[in-house]
């Protein structure tokens, strides 16, 4: 059974009588341990898909099963708990809290899962070690470079040992070299067995992941999946993915 299972998921916005299908009948499976990228032009619905996958948003139609639980009709409270324990987010603009130092930022998810301060500290430091940021733990986000901030954000995403990490344009705000470093970090985490979904509009970045899903106007238009053919072979949708 896949870790994530989307069936017929649509997200429809109504703007002044006009119907906007940000997502239109999307089917998608993500297995545990997979490194996958979601690629598409601006406005194609990548972020919308990621928000629904990440339990930040609920679909208008369709079913979602995450780690064995159906979440398309969960309460906000249950969604918050799932976000907290099973999901890690990495954003384009890092989204660290400027008033907290790096360590406190990394501890934040555990504050909401109710861990003791000693355990929080231990686990936050371990996560910072994974991204090679432990020597910056007392710095404020503003005192760090963009790459360092993003590493701190990745540590925060890792700290509750989530089932899956979603990264929305994680290199979008970084220069190409720093972007490389961040991508390398994701690759390393993937090798360690973590499930990662990378959202990007850049095909070069998407190239680092074995499987690539391309969306256009809210629909999955193309799936590049090495497993299906034993090699990189293009497949036209709609196939069961």
């Amino acid at each position: 059974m896949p870790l994530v299972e989307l069936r017929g998921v649509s997200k429809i916005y109504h703007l002044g009588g006009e119907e906007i299908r940000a997502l239109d009948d999307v089917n998608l499976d993500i297995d545990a341990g997979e490194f996958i990228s979601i690629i598409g032009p601006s406005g194609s619905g990548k972020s919308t898909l990621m928000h629904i996958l990440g339990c930040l948003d609920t679909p208008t139609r369709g079913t979602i099963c995450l780690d064995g639980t159906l979440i398309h009709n969960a309460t906000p409270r249950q969604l918050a708990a799932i976000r907290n324990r099973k999901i890690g987010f990495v954003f384009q603009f890092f989204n660290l809290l400027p008033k907290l130092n790096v360590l406190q930022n990394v501890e934040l998810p555990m504050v909401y899962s109710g861990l003791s301060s000693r355990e929080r500290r231990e686990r936050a430091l371990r996560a910072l070690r994974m991204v090679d940021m432990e020597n910056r733990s007392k710095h404020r986000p503003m005192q760090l470079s963009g790459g360092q901030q993003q590493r701190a954000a990745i540590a925060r995403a890792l700290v509750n040992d989530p089932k899956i990490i979603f990264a929305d344009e994680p290199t979008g705000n970084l220069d190409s070299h720093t972007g490389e470093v961040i991508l390398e970090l994701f690759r390393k985490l993937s090798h360690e067995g973590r499930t990662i979904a990378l959202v990007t509009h850049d095909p070069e970045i998407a190239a680092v992941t074995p499987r690539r899903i391309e969306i256009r106007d809210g629909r999955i238009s193309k799936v590049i999946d090495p497993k299906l053919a034993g090699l990189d072979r293009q497949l036209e949708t709609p196939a069961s993915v």
Partner: protein
Amino acid sequence: MNFWSAIEVGFKEIWAHKFRSLLTMLGIVLGVSSLVAMAALVKGMENGMKEALIAIGGLEKVRVEEQDIPAKQRQYTDDAVGCTINDVYALERSAPLVTLVEPEMRMPSYYRVTRDGKMPDWVNLIGTWPSALEMNEHIVQYGRMFNDIDDENARNVCVIGTYIRDELFGAPDEVGHEIIPLGQTININGEPFRIIGMFQRYESERERKQRELQATQPKAAPQTGPKRSRGWGGHKGGGFVFGWKNRTIYIPLNTMWLRFRAATGTNNIPDPHLSALNLKVASVDELEPALQQARNVLMSTHHGIEDFRFQTQEDWAQNITSAIHHARLSGGFISAISLLVGGIGIMNIMLASITERIREIGIRKAIGATYADVFVQILIESVVIALLGGLAGLAAAYGLVYLLQTLSPTENTPIITFTALGVAFLFSAGVGVLAGLVPAFKAAKLDPIQALRYD
């Protein structure tokens, strides 16, 4: 998120905006301190008035005075006898609800009390019975009260208040030691009277405290210029009730009659006339029936002519109670307004704060904060501001009371009670909760995606 982390976040947020938070707290500080100060003033007023009420004999004491004969009985004017000693005997005999009766014969005001050419400006000289002691809550500190035998023999003895001693023999703070003039003679309208007793010095709680304070401090500069009396209450009198008591001279009733009132009687037989009489009832609850009883008795001794009336302390007590009630109400109202203003200030600042922190709230929600987590966090921040302001307000209340006291010293020391402190503190907490509700609700219902997009 647990409670303590929420409080910690609250403090951090306040610390991050020190000046802004301080200004916001100021409203609560003013509200709380004015609430406590108002309560203290009212409490002081209440205590002072209660003290005075007890000093004049309490609510159980009723004065019987003469009054003009009612219009419909005008034709009996010549037969009206006024208050006499017979009323006293009759009441003692026939009014069981009246526990104590005391006759009073006042000396005409042109009579003079002197010694060695010194004369107090105003005295309260009364011929009475030994029961006056109990009736008027007097305490003889030195010597003794005159007794029935002194009265029977119409002896020239007197018991004086400390003001009389101060004026005729010297006050302790002028001569440096307490003079106890027992056995000394004073002159009342030419007649020598021996002092056999002196009352204690009556003073309000506030006066006593001030005196004790002064005793521990170096003496103030001596009064300059010619000796002068500072009038009522100012010099030694204290509150007018206490001053009035300190100016008392009691002499036996018979002495009063024989020495000073004989001329008004016929054939040197004293006229049994009284200027007034006081009676006391067992308890205030029995005031109605006791007065009815007394009235019946007096109607018979006065041959049905109603030339007397009862003067109770009820009106006075009622005035006190309603004055206190009004003071409490208006004080409470003013404090409530300042607390309200303080609360609006907090709400305003919390609304500004959550608008600044929409992104922060989005991030917190994305990583797992629930509606309740955010709600509680904002609410606690609001309450923490209010409580810090409240605590500062409690401290400021002491300053405010001190300031009020130095700016306008009153008869009554303001008293800061624990109840007032507690109530004011609870109010500040309540204001914090109320002011935080709307901002907390707005923050908690933010959509995480919208909030994350915001900048």
